[in-house]
């Protein structure tokens, strides 16, 4: 398909080599790995290989620590609910205000069930206050869940350090690492992290396959019960085709790790600098010194993100926005609000997320197009006058709530 795809934090294209690895498992190798005959046996071996490929990408000590699930959300739910079930005497959860809805919506539900959830705040750059965190770590806390990298800004949380602290307090530590896995090197065997959520489609594997890493020795209660698959920790016939695909994708991500952190990062930096220098009243959100190599989140003040995306789309450019309108909600992105970004900028945030398939020519094209689009929309904005914002924009336009 023609077009420039800079929305790789939303999902990625499946690599051709991954598709090729998967294809035989639809037809020739269709057997059920649980079966006793040779139809099933070969599939079982393929899953074993994939498990080891994922193990290597995560830097896990044992391949049995890898549990295949259906998606990142399932991994998140399994991890949190397991931690609560396995430690019924502990009734508290610590998480952050900027987690993915897969965690936040679950936590809101658990609050209604009687659990106490502590939400760690972030500063203007999306960073946590570890002193606040330490104070909350009591013997009441069953599990801490903090994301490895934020999906909107790419900002990292110090999860390795946070896991040490949780471990010392006797609490389990879970991290939603769907954005980090495949983009930054991981070495889980040297950490105190108990559980990690992974999503295949964020690293050029297909949709519908995920992983829950479960450190050996971590007490566990399954979410799905039924069969003995995944050692009884996740019942249900294996999605063998996608598991094979994820294994291949994991292997390729590991091979491309240096490229991701040099070349992709360079393109991202070029894109960001190119836009910022040409567009007045725009700024990067999150912590640019400590983030994913592929992500740039830019706020364009005084205009709204969905309108930007629609115009970008007209030029064949795909990106994402934190505006309320893109999701049909009444508030802009909770991540932007948590960082205290004002409404006039939060609605105009655009996330560009690259991949190892992004090219220099694509970056140049986006740098050329974005300033025009922003200028065009600002001409329509009641906060804008001529070449700049109205003097005291908030006073120049103060609408009645309607």
């Amino acid at each position: 398909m023609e077009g420039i795809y800079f929305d790789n934090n939303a999902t990625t294209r499946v690599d051709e080599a991954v598709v090729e690895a998967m294809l035989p498992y639809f037809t020739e190798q269709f057997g059920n790995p649980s079966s006793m005959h040779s139809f099933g046996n070969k599939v079982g071996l393929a899953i074993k290989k994939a498990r080891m490929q994922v193990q290597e990408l995560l830097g896990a000590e044992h391949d049995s620590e890898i549990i295949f699930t259906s998606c990142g959300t399932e991994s998140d739910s399994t991890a949190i609910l397991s931690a609560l079930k396995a430690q019924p005497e502990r009734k508290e959860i610590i998480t952050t205000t900027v987690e993915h809805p897969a965690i936040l919506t679950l936590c809101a539900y658990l609050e209604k069930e009687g659990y106490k959830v502590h939400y760690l705040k972030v500063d203007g750059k999306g960073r946590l206050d570890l002193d606040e965190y330490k104070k909350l770590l009591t013997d009441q806390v069953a599990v801490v869940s903090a994301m490895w990298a934020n999906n909107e800004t790419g900002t990292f949380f110090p999860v390795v350090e946070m896991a040490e602290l949780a471990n010392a307090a006797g609490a389990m530590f879970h991290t939603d690492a769907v954005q980090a896995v495949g983009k930054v090197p991981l070495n889980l065997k040297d950490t105190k992290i108990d559980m990690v959520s992974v999503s295949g489609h964020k690293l050029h594997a297909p949709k519908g396959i995920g992983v829950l890493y479960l450190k050996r020795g971590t007490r566990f209660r399954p979410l799905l019960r039924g069969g003995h698959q995944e050692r009884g920790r996740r019942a249900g016939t294996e999605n063998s085709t996608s598991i094979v695909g994820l294994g291949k994708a994991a292997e390729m991500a590991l091979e491309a790790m240096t490229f991701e952190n040099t070349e992709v990062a360079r393109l991202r930096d070029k894109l960001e600098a190119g836009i910022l220098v040409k567009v007045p009243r725009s700024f990067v959100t999150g912590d640019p010194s400590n983030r994913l190599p592929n992500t740039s989140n830019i706020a364009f003040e005084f205009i709204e993100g969905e309108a930007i995306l629609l115009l970008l789309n007209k030029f064949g450019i795909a990106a994402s926005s934190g505006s309320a309108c893109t999701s049909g909600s009444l508030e802009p992105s909770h991540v932007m609000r948590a960082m205290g970004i004002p409404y006039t900028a939060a609605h105009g945030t655009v996330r560009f997320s690259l991949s190892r398939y992004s090219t220099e020519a694509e970056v140049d094209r986006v740098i050329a197009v974005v300033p025009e689009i922003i200028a065009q929309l600002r001409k329509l904005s009641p906060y804008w006058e001529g070449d700049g914002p109205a003097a005291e924009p908030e006073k120049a336009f103060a609408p009645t709530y309607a």
Partner: protein
Amino acid sequence: MWDYSEKVKEHFFQPRNAGVLEGANGVGDVGSISCGDALRLMLKVEPETDIILNAHFQTFGCGSAIASSSALTEMIKGKTLDEALKVSNQDIADYLDGLPPEKMHCSVMGREALQAAVANYRGEVWSDDHEEGALVCKCFAIDAVLIEDTIRANNLCSVQDVTNYTKAGGGCSSCHEGIEEILVKVMTERGETFKPGAVAQEAVAPAGMTNLQRIRKIEAVLDTVRPQLKRDGGDIELVDVEGKTIFVNMKGACAGCQMEALTLQGIQQKLMEELKEFIKIVPTKAGALSRATCQP
């Protein structure tokens, strides 16, 4: 991605009447920056005739907010103020060949900007009279504030009640959990406990009516409509009452009449008013059979 009509896209990509209007004598600023939609409508009105000579807009908002603003300015130009005020938000949405339910508030904002601009021209103070909440039912575009107000005003206590009064929850059912949460909140305020299993206001015998009284009442209502039906050579007969379902037979010319559905609807409305409860009127099989044989 939103399913925008071609008309919406066209008005977004080529907005009409965008930008500052020099010499405007009526300006309306409405919207909420927290929601991400705000609009300034500028009118140039001829004082002698009250005719809107020109209308411009500036909008901070999404594709449909910009398109709604553009459509509004096109719709009101050349109209007198009083004519323009008759433009409803539905008119704006219709002009654009419809808006997604999540985006209907964009057309509401357009209408309110118009009211505010007219008030500004006339030297009056316009105050917003509605509060918009989070969208709960996406099938019928019903928000939390409307649901909450309706529950409060009518002492509702079940999701079914809410659906009957507001339509919310009558489609795909995915918002039932959300509606239940609002019920819990409002019912707690009035000192009651929400029971998820409760059926719509258990009203087989509402307001202390016994079954017999209720059936007599139904008969009485049918008697009032009977003369009309007889005039047209038809009749209606009560067959049975089962909870909230009232079975009837349409007889004579009424059976199979093309207006049957409409007639039944009218009777159902009348019954609901008299019984003060929600009921459903269902023509029985006998009626349906005669309907099938009557129709060519």
